[in-house]
């Protein structure tokens, strides 16, 4: 590998350009797709076809700046903020309930800082949880971690955070992501496999049980109804099943080669706010199966680089940070595509770097900066790439 050949020189630093280019490519592609999906509706509603593109572009510039900073700052310096980060996260979550909270589309998940500058506390919570878990785990011994109690202690705080996100900000999907990140980090840190496999099987069994109950029992419960409609969205084409069905129309009508960039019909108001969570369905419609696979491949590359960096990290703390980021990206991509293809019930999850959303973009780039900083500290001579 080219990097190894350079081993002879001293003071050389490794930098994961592959990861950087994958991220740049995803962001650029995201901007194109945001323009493609939003321009028609933006023209009709705001009289400005580039409204969403411009806002996302500004966020990208700011995000680049943030990413540069986190790339430069030694990741060890963050460790002492692990507990503070948790505290700040909790405060931010409760701030949503104050007049600073902003309601968008019926959900109160935002905090306004000044003017139109607003962000979702959930984004900060995700980073804070990654930092917190990495810090906690490195302070636990292998034996302590392997006990059920040790695992429970590690998982307790993220679980509370997930619960708060779900209950306070009515954001179940962010809660799931936070919980998922913590579980993956714990799994990596713990030498045991058995209890995770049991836990996994248990979750699958419960899920199957709920689905069975929803389909075989005449229950009027709202959530049960949701599951029934998830299994057959055409049961309620104008209500709960609407968005899912519109997304499926978009994906299905894309076919193998798609309608061509800009050729989507579903973005013309049929799939409302196509630039948000459902943007992947428009990618499928315009670029076809090949375009969709290319996007998935880019994300695979991204998490593959995360894996490589984590494995070559100078210490466990760095490795866990990268694993946390990897879990974050992977879970969010998996859940997003699963929702869009109706593989799981509809819940709002954005596609990293591609869906419209300024704060999300900036925090994601901060996380990439963190990973890049870890990569910079890789000692090349005893590493296998």
């Amino acid at each position, binding site marked *: 590998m080219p990097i190894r050949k350079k081993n002879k020189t001293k003071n050389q630093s490794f930098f994961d350009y592959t990861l950087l280019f994958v991220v740049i490519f995803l962001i650029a592609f995201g901007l194109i797709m945001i323009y493609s999906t939003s321009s*028609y509706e933006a023209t*009709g509603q705001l009289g400005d076809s580039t409204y969403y593109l411009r806002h996302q572009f500004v966020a990208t510039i700011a995000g680049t700046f943030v990413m540069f900073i986190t790339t430069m700052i030694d990741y060890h310096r963050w460790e002492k903020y692990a507990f503070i980060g948790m505290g700040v996260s909790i405060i931010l979550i409760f701030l949503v309930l104050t007049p600073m909270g902003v309601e968008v589309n019926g959900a109160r998940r935002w905090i306004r800082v000044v003017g139109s500058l607003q962000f979702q506390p959930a984004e900060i919570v995700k980073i804070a949880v990654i930092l917190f878990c990495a810090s906690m785990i*490195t302070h636990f011994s*292998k034996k302590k971690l392997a006990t059920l109690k040790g695992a429970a202690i590690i998982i307790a705080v993220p679980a509370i955070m997930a619960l708060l996100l779900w209950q306070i900000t009515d954001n179940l999907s962010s809660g799931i992501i936070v919980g998922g990140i913590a579980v*993956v980090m714990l*799994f*990596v*840190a*713990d*030498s045991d496999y058995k209890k995770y496999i049991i836990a996994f099987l248990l979750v699958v069994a419960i899920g199957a049980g709920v689905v069975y109950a929803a389909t075989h029992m005449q229950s009027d419960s709202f959530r049960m109804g949701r599951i029934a409609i998830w299994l057959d969205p055409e049961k309620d084409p104008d209500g709960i099943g609407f968005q899912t069905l519109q997304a*499926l*129309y*978009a*994906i*299905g*009508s*894309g*076919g*193998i080669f798609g309608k061509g960039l800009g050729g989507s*019909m*579903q973005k*013309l*108001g*049929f799939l409302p706010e196509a630039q948000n969570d459902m943007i992947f369905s428009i990618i*499928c419609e315009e670029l*076809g*199966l090949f375009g*969709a*696979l290319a996007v*998935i491949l880019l*994300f*695979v590359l991204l*998490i*593959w680089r995360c*894996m490589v960096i*984590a*494995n070559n*990290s*100078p*210490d*466990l*703390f760095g*490795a866990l940070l990268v*694993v946390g980021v*990897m*879990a974050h990206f*992977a*879970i969010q*991509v*998996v859940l997003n*595509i*699963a929702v869009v*293809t109706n*593989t799981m019930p509809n819940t709002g999850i954005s596609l990293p770097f591609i869906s419209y959303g300024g704060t999300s973009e900036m925090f994601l780039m901060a996380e990439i900066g963190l990973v890049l900083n870890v990569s910079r500290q890789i000692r090349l001579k005893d590493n296998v790439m």
Partner: protein
Amino acid sequence: MKGFQIYHKKKIVFAFFVLLLMLLGLTGRLVYVMVFQSEYYSQKALELHERERSIKAARGRILDKNGTVIADNKVVCTISVIHSQIENPEEVAGVLSKELEMDYETVLKKVQKYSSMERIKSNVDKSVGDKIRQCNLSGVKVDEDYKRFYPYSSLASKVLGFTGGDNQGILGLEVKYDEQLQGTNGTILTLTDAKGLELDYTGESRIEPIAGNDLTLTLDMNIQSYATQLAMQVMEAKEAESVSLIVMNPNNGAILAMVDVPEYDLNHPFELEYAYKEKTPEVLQSVSGNTTEAANKMWRNACINDTYEPGSTFKVITAAAGLECKAVRLDEQFHCPGFCIVEDRKIRCHKTQGHGSENFLTATMNSCNPVFINVGLRVGIDRYYEYFKQFGLLNKTGIDLPGEAGTIMHKKEDMGLVELATVSFGQSFQITPIQLITTISSLINGGHRVTPHLADYVTDSVTGNVTKFNYSVQDDIVSDETSETLRFMLEKVVSEGGGKKAYIEGYSIGGKTATSQTLPRSSGQYIASFIGFEPANDPQIIALVIIRKPQGVYYGGQIAAPVIKKLYENILPYLEGIQYN
């Protein structure tokens, strides 16, 4: 390497592969949706995105036998505005109100109304539509459409009928041959956004309309227009209520003219004509629904929709029955005292002092009632009724116009001698004018019962193939001999008898006059009629005129016969000219 162990690395790789597996699973799901379910969802999506607009097919034209177009299509425009595309509402309203001669405020209101598409005015002349289109106002749509147009407006109105707003036939030939004329509408499929706005850049897929087939009639507009003039003249001169005039080829039933004045303007069928307005003051208001009685009356074609007592013209049928069953000979002597007693009834002759001694031929020339009663009685109820049926009088003629009225006749078991006597000279029952002319045609053409008709052939709009209509002919309803005798007798009626006023020097015309009372008889109103054919020995043309409720002189021989004379004076040379050509 603080605390970083090999098992951590293994687990990181494990976690990576678990996540990779999930993404692989989702890729599988994507392949399923985008390859195997693609067709299903594409179809569903297309149904969601497509809007269908129909393109009217041009209705087939109606032509007369000379190829003159008598029912055509006019291109008209519908002007509408699309609210969301209008840039300058005041300017749009200004231009539209000026060009369409509409109130500015009304137009502005429609322009400013929030709707996806608002119709400003339909049936706008093409020239006006083109002008508006040239103004290039954004948000203004000019759609072309077809509207039925009748170049001769009221000529042959009762025959042609008219069409409704969707170009569907409503009356007359327009409805009878609707299937041929209608054509197949095309469609424009356009893609729209969620609000229903059409997308300009996607283009549209069109299924072109197929124009309706042209219908060519046996009608000759030259004869029709002259016949209409004559009918109008006599109606005005005699202050009659209405005049019907039918001109037909007795050998095949082809109708050359069918007039029933007063007629109405086919281009404005819902506006009451003066003649009808006078009697019914209310004016028709709406095009759809609620057509008043007056309009229905205006549209009625008395030639086929109404029945009347034929009177003396029916003596031709009695003569045919008598001759056919040999109940009477041409030279047989009769005596007319001015009346005739049948059972307990005394039935008068129109000449109250009586015709005295006369043979059957002269009795026919005199139109003597007692002689025909006598002949009728000789034939007898059973045989007379049998002939009535054999001549085709009990059935409808089968003319290709809607709403033909049937014959109103005594039931056979109710018929006594008195009824037979009155039927013999054309009273106490009712038939339509078209029934009378068809029956007499069949009796004088050698005994071939023809089907009267107006449609000759259709020309396929795509292939140009011509399909001729076939009409049934029933042979031998009367013998050649009887037919010949009838022609001889009827020629005498015109040359020497009561139909003298129809005589034209150089032509041999056969005919019969009639003067009947309108019902109820107490009204003191009459119907004067005359039926005449030419040439008498080999009839090529037959015409029937019926003048209803004339004022002053009301005898058929006095007022109806001259109409046929004038008609023949003009059209016979014209028809000969056609034959030479």
